[in-house]
C-alpha cells in the first residue's frame, strides 16, 4: 500500500471516529420539568460566624455536616475530607492571648477562582451565590483545588464506605468536594445542617440567610457588628464573614 493511501485511510478512520464522538453533542430537547420552588431567584446566601459564641470544644456543626452529607473520614490527615473544619488559633501579640476556635468552610466567594479555573464548568457559581461542584461532570483534574487560596476544597482520594444519610448522595472517589451550603436543603426551604445544629444547642454562632434581604437575620447581624472575611485582600469577596476574628 502506498504511504499516501495509508495516511488517507487513517485520516478517514480518525474523522469517522471524531464524528461518532460528536454525535452526543446534538442538542437535547430543552424543556424544564420541575417548575416549582424558585429558590435561587434574587437571593444571595451568606453566613456570619460569631466567634465569641463558638465554644472551643463544641463540634456540633461538624458532626451534623458529616451526617447530612455523608462526608468520608479515612483516619488519615492526608485524605480526610472536612467540608467544615475547626482550627484553633492564637494571636501572635500579646503572647498569652486566649485560644479561639474558628470554623472554616468554603467561603462561597463572590468571585470564585475555583469556578474560573474549572475547565468543564463542573464547579460554578449558582445564581444565588452558592459555589457548587457538579459531580456528574467533574473530570477530577484538581485545578480548582490549586486555585482555591483558602484550602477549602478536598478531594475524594479513596472510596467512601459510610452512608449514614441515604436520602442524600455521597461522593465516589475521583472528584473534589467543598461545602455547598447544603444546597439540597436550601432548595426545599430548610437551613444548612450545621446552622440547624448550632441553633439546636442554643449557641447561635452560625447565622445564615439572604444577604440581599435587609430584613434577614444575617443582614441585621452584619449591620450591627464589625464583620470581615478571611484574607479579603485576595479579592475573592468571601460571603462567609466572621465576628471577632
Amino acid at each position, binding site marked *: 500500500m502506498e504511504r499516501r493511501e495509508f495516511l488517507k485511510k487513517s485520516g478517514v478512520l480518525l474523522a469517522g471516529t471524531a464524528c461518532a464522538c460528536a454525535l*452526543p453533542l446534538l442538542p437535547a430537547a430543552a424543556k424544564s420539568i420541575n417548575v416549582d420552588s424558585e429558590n435561587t431567584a434574587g437571593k444571595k446566601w451568606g453566613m456570619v460566624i460569631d466567634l465569641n459564641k463558638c465554644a472551643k470544644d463544641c463540634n456540633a456543626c461538624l458532626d451534623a455536616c458529616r451526617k447530612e452529607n455523608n462526608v468520608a473520614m479515612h483516619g488519615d490527615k492526608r485524605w480526610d475530607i472536612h467540608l467544615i473544619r475547626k482550627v484553633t*488559633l492564637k494571636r501572635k501579640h500579646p503572647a498569652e492571648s486566649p485560644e479561639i476556635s474558628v470554623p472554616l468552610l468554603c467561603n462561597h466567594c463572590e468571585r470564585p477562582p475555583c469556578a474560573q479555573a474549572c475547565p*468543564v464548568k463542573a464547579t460554578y457559581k449558582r445564581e444565588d451565590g452558592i459555589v457548587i461542584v457538579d459531580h456528574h461532570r*467533574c473530570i*477530577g483534574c*484538581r485545578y480548582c483545588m*490549586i486555585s482555591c487560596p483558602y484550602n477549602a476544597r478536598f*478531594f475524594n482520594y479513596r472510596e467512601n464506605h459510610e452512608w449514614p444519610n441515604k436520602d442524600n448522595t455521597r461522593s465516589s472517589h475521583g*472528584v473534589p468536594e467543598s461545602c455547598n451550603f447544603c444546597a439540597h436543603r436550601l432548595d426545599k426551604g430548610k437551613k444548612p445542617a450545621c446552622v440547624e445544629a448550632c441553633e439546636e444547642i442554643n449557641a447561635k454562632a452560625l447565622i445564615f440567610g439572604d444577604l440581599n434581604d435587609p430584613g434577614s437575620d444575617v443582614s441585621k447581624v452584619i449591620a450591627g457588628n464589625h464583620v470581615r472575611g478571611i484574607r479579603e485582600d485576595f479579592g475573592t469577596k468571601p460571603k462567609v464573614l466572621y465576628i471577632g476574628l
Partner: protein
Amino acid sequence: METDFETIEGKSTQFSVLLAILAVLALAGLYATYRMYVEGIYLSGMTNRIPWGLQVILAVFYIGLSAGSLVISSLYAIFGKKEYKPFARISVFLAFLFLVAALLSIISDWGRPDRIFEPFYHLNPLSMLSINPFLYNVYMLICLVYLWAMFKEKEKLVKIIAPIAVIWAIGVHSGTGAIFGFVPRELYQSALLPPSFIAAALSSGTALMILVLLLLFKVTRRPLDENLVVRLGKLLAIFIVIVMYFVFVENAYRLYMPVSHEAGMYFLFGGFHSWVFWGGLIILGSIVPAVILFNPATVKRIPWIVVSCVLVVFGVLCERYIIVIPGQTHAPDLFPNMVVVSSALAEGYVSYSISFYEVLQALGVVGIIGFAFVLGLKLFKMMPTEAKVLKESDSVKSPSEEKELEKQTVAS
C-alpha cells in the same frame, strides 16, 4: 546539498528488545492508571494539600521539550539554514510526540479519566486548563501538517507553516505558564511565568534534541559533522543565560517585595525543594553547562557537549519541580496575625513524596512515546543519511553510507 532521508532498518535483535522493553513500560503505566481509576488516586503521593504531583511536573516538562524540538526545525525552514535540514523531520516528529506525552500524563492524572470527552461538551472558555488543551491540539495538528509537508518536499508549504508553528508554540508555552501564573497562590501568581516557561522550554528542548541526534547517529552508525553539534551547543548556551535571567528576576522581585518576602525565603531556603533549586537548577542545570558551553576549549568537544546537555535537561526538570511543588507545600497565610495551634487538616508547610504508582505511570508515558518514536523511525523516512556543515563538496559519499545503501538493496 540535497538531503536524503530513509527509514532505519530495525531488524536486529536489539531493536526488537528495545521495542519489547518500551511496550512493557507502557503496559506497566496502563496498569498503574487502571489501579488508580478503580481504587482512587490515593495510590499516588498526592494529598489534600498537594493535589498536583509528578504527572503535572512531567506534563509541563514534556511541553517544554516539544517547543525546543520545533525550534531546531524552524532554524532550517525560517532562517534558511540548510545545514539543519537533516534534523528537521525528526525534530518535528519529536515535538508532536512530546505533546502526546504531555496530554497522556495529564489524562492519566485525572480522577475520572473515563470522562475524557466532557471537556468537548462543556467548555469553560475562561479556564486556563481548557484554553491550553485547545492550544495543544491545534499545535499537534500543525505539527502533523508540517511533517506531511516535509515528507512531500513541499518547500513552499514548509516555509509558510514553519513560522505559524513557531508562533503557536510560543502561545502554547505562554499558556502553560499561565496555568500556574494566573492562580492566586503566593508562589504561583506571577506574570513572569509565561515568558520564563518559553525560555526554559527552548533550553531543555534544544539540549534534548542534541542528545537524541547524537544517540541516533551513533546507534545507526551514520556520519554526523561535529561542527553542527557545536553550533547547536552555542545556541543552547544563550538559552541557558536567558533562563537564569528569568529565574533571577523572579526571585529578586519576590524577596524584595514585603508582601512576598516570607514566601520567597521559603522558596529559596525552605526545605527539600530548595536543594532542588540550588543544586539541580542553579549549579548543575545552569552554571556548569554554561561554563562548559562558553569555554572555547570545551565547547568543541562532543563529550563535553553531551554532559552539558544532560545537565540542562536535568536542570529544567528540576525547574518544573520547583514551579509545581513549592507553590503547594507553601501554606497560605490565612490568618496573618495569628498562629495555628491545631487543626484537622495539615495547615502549615507540608511535603510531597512521589509514590511508586506515580513512577509507574510516568514510565508508562515514556514507554508509549518511546515505542511510537522508534516505530515511526522505522516506518517513515525520517533519518537523514548524513548531516554536515555546508560549503564543502558534498557529493562524495562516505564509505559507511555506501554500506548502508548496499544493505538496503540487499534487504529489499
